């Protein structure tokens, strides 16, 4: 599986200058790639192009050579967007209701809820659980769409630092186990360095790719390693 963006250009309606111009990206199966960059450099737009929610004016986006279409990838937007009238379980099952060929049983969902510590909240409404729990439910909903590629748009942006650390460790363990391909947006340079194989730094009209020099598996001690601290400083200068 390869996710390929070739010469992609996108301009918002009613704007003259493209927000993304002539972007080329190649993401291999199982890679964890982070997109960083200042606001307005088109990070979220790239994810929306990959989902098919937006259509690029020029260029092509393919998975294994096939042009992408809606429903091909799992997408988790910035806000958790849990449907407030559905229970935790029903929120997770919505992907299976929409895509009839998706093999997801309530039993599978229950097993996952057990693993992420939410089994007691299966019948809870989104407003009855904490922000961190909501993010986990939103992540499960995206992940259990069963797609190989997961697009995560600043999933931990609104969380406090302790919860954020927990969620990062949790995301890494799931990613390693399931061999998913993740495209991750963050403003947190430490988070990007700690989680990713590769960081893509977006600036207006230029893109820079940076390999992360840390080995796998990652663990929290690495946050203080000289490699990570050095990389973060380098990113701070470049951004």
């Amino acid at each position, binding site marked *: 599986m390869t996710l390929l963006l070739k010469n992609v250009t996108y301009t918002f309606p009613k704007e003259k200058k493209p927000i993304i111009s002539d972007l080329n990206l190649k993401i291999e199966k199982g890679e964890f790639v982070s997109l960083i960059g200042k606001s307005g450099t088109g990070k979220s737009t790239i994810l*929306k192009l990959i*989902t*098919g*929610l937006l259509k690029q004016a020029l260029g092509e986006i393919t998975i294994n050579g096939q042009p992408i*279409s*809606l*429903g*091909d*990838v799992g*997408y988790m*937007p910035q*806000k958790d*967007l849990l*449907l*407030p*009238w559905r229970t935790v379980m029903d929120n997770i099952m*919505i*992907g299976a*209701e*929409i*895509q009839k060929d998706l093999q997801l049983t309530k039993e599978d969902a229950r097993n996952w809820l057990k693993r992420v510590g939410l089994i007691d909240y299966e019948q809870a*409404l989104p*407003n*009855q659980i904490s922000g961190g729990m909501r993010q986990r439910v939103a992540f499960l909903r995206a992940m259990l*769409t069963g797609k190989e590629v997961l697009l995560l748009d600043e999933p931990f942006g609104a969380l406090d630092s302790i919860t954020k650390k927990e969620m990062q460790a949790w995301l890494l363990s799931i990613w390693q186990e399931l061999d998913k391909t993740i495209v991750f947006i963050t403003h947190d340079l430490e988070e990007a360095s700690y989680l990713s194989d590769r960081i893509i730094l977006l600036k207006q009209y230029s893109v820079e790719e940076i390999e992360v020099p840390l080995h796998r598996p990652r663990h929290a001690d690495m946050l203080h390693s000289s490699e990570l601290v050095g990389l973060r400083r380098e990113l701070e200068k470049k951004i």
Partner: protein
Amino acid sequence: MRNFFKTYGLFIVFMVVALIALEYLVQSDIIPAFIVPAPTDVVIHIIENWRPLIFEHLGATMLEFAIGFILAVVGGVGLAVSMFFSKTIEKMLYPAVLISQMIPIIALSPIFVLWFGYTIWSKVAVTILMSFFPIVVGAYDGFKSTDKDYIELLRSMGASKRQIFTKLNIQMAFPSFFSGLKIAIVYSLVGATIGEWLGASEGLGYYSRRMSGDLNADGVFAAIVILTIVGIILFALTAMLEKRTLRWKETE
């Protein structure tokens, strides 16, 4: 129950004091009884005439109300859905729905009598005209209020327009729909009564008009009291249904 008194206690005390004051003013001839009847006289009138009032007249009014209200809900929601899916229908009919509210209904009612005669349908028509608007606007604005982010999320999963409608738009429309429904249910009852005022042989509107002709203030007020109580009950039932349906909003 405690909550109930906390919310309505002051109002109940006010009403009781006002009724006692009114009773005193009428009994001591400060206000003539044919202008405003004493509350006890109204109650006595209701007790003495409860059979025809409840079975004959309230029954007739409720039938007109029920048929009119149900037709208004079915038609109103149907129109709101069609306008939501078709821009053409929206552009063609939304102004007409708005204009229908500018028509003074009292002036239109004789025309309904002309069309439908003194049958139940002239009253049903007034009821529909009164309650249609808040239902259409409540449902239609509700459908349109759906947050774009949620729509994008479902589209990213490959949802069709129909799936988005059933899984998202309908639920998102409920708060606004219920606001319209609560207004409509009260308007419907008013509509049925107006319809009866303008031409009927039974119903609480007809009853109060007949009593007014006889200068029987007790009778007029008896019909008004019954209509008010029924209106409050209908409103409360709708509010309860709303609370049940929108339980997820309570924890917000």
